[in-house]
């Protein structure tokens, strides 16, 4: 049964922009949102390209019998994880050695960084809007993210 024209009750009571933000605030928010949107898009595209390049080379090297990886390594716990780049130095060494798995990991790291960048850019955006409450909120979230990385690498 289609309910069709259900409309929120609030529409009648509000004379102008409902969201309690002035027009110039709305414009700044839109600007900020577009910046965030673009940052994400570039990050995602870059990640995709890097991962794709690494994946193609990895598949080629697997077929040529030249890679230490195989699907079988990851079907039982324990044997596989030592083959996986696990720290930034691993990735760096791998890149210098021309290891495709390091290229893939680099691309994945770019991807994994995109939410963090998004939060960081939001701090700036709220700052530009002089929205100190949300600057504080966003810095809190960013701090928790940083804490989680420290907890992660220690644990």
């Amino acid at each position, binding site marked *: 049964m289609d309910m069709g024209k259900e409309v929120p009750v609030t529409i009648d009571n509000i004379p102008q922009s409902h969201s309690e933000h002035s027009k110039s605030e709305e414009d700044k928010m839109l600007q900020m949102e577009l910046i965030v949107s673009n940052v994400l898009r570039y990050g995602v595209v870059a990640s995709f390209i890097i991962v794709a390049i690494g994946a193609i080379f990895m598949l080629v090297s697997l077929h040529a019998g030249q890679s230490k990886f195989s699907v079988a390594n990851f079907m039982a716990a324990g044997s596989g994880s030592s083959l996986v780049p696990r720290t930034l130095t691993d990735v760096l060494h791998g890149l210098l050695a021309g290891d495709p798995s390091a290229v893939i990991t680099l691309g994945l790291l770019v991807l994994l960084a995109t939410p963090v960048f998004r939060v960081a850019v939001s701090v700036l955006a709220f700052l530009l809007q002089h929205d100190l409450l949300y600057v504080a909120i966003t810095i809190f979230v960013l701090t*928790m993210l940083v804490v989680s990385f420290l907890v992660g690498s220690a*644990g």
Partner: protein
Amino acid sequence: MDPTQFFLITLFGSIIAGGLGSVLGLGGGIIVIPMLTLGLGIDIRYAIGASIVSVIATSSGAAAAYVRDRITNLRIGMFLEMATTTGAITGAFIGGLISGQVLYIVFAVVLAYSALAMFNKRHGELPVGVESHPWARSLRLADEYPDAVLHQTVQYEVAGVPLGLGLMYIAGTVSGLLGIGSGSLKVPAMDLAMKLPMKVSSATSNFMIGVTAAASAGVYFARGDIVPLIAAPVAMGVLLGATVGARLMVRLRSTSIRRLFVVVLVVISAQMAAKGLGIGVR
């Protein structure tokens, strides 16, 4: 198994995962994990690592579209993420203390309850008669979004802010403990407790799950659970699927999205119950 075959299967499955996840505000783990473990025999820890990649890919892949389309409520998302990220860290700390099986059962029950509650709302396109919580006013959470299907700008209020905050803390803790599933708690929390329009809940959840997953990603990466051979096709597929899914979502009716979500919740609930009871997955 031939690596290229493995790669292509995972790639195609991930496209579907990204498409479904981006429409519903989920991370795609519901498809990625069973596909890898049951379908391809991969060990669960690497499947969870791949799921973390899937969540971030869904989030960032779809986010550009949702932000541009002004559906994501960044203030609500950021404010609630205070609770979710705190929860994720709590989850990492208490990791050893709670039996995994008990957690899965509890999670399954909560999801089943959410499915029922959302099912009861299945006819309503938009929320009606919602009063903003006082906190929502101080935090300026209320907003509006353009609904492409209804051809109107929908203005909405925000209720239940303290409850939403509490639920997000729990969602974050669960996510930190299990490595999955925060979207399936976030969307019902926003839909049922905070009474947001369905599309806003989905798009805002889509933003939030990326941040929550990033808080766990460091741990899984350091453990070597993010495997290039597995995570590469997942990342690529989900990114493709999520980009398309985000464009699709704006053209769907809220009722359709909610009904699809109920179905998915039931499936996830069953998956979690099975794990908790020790059936099947391992």
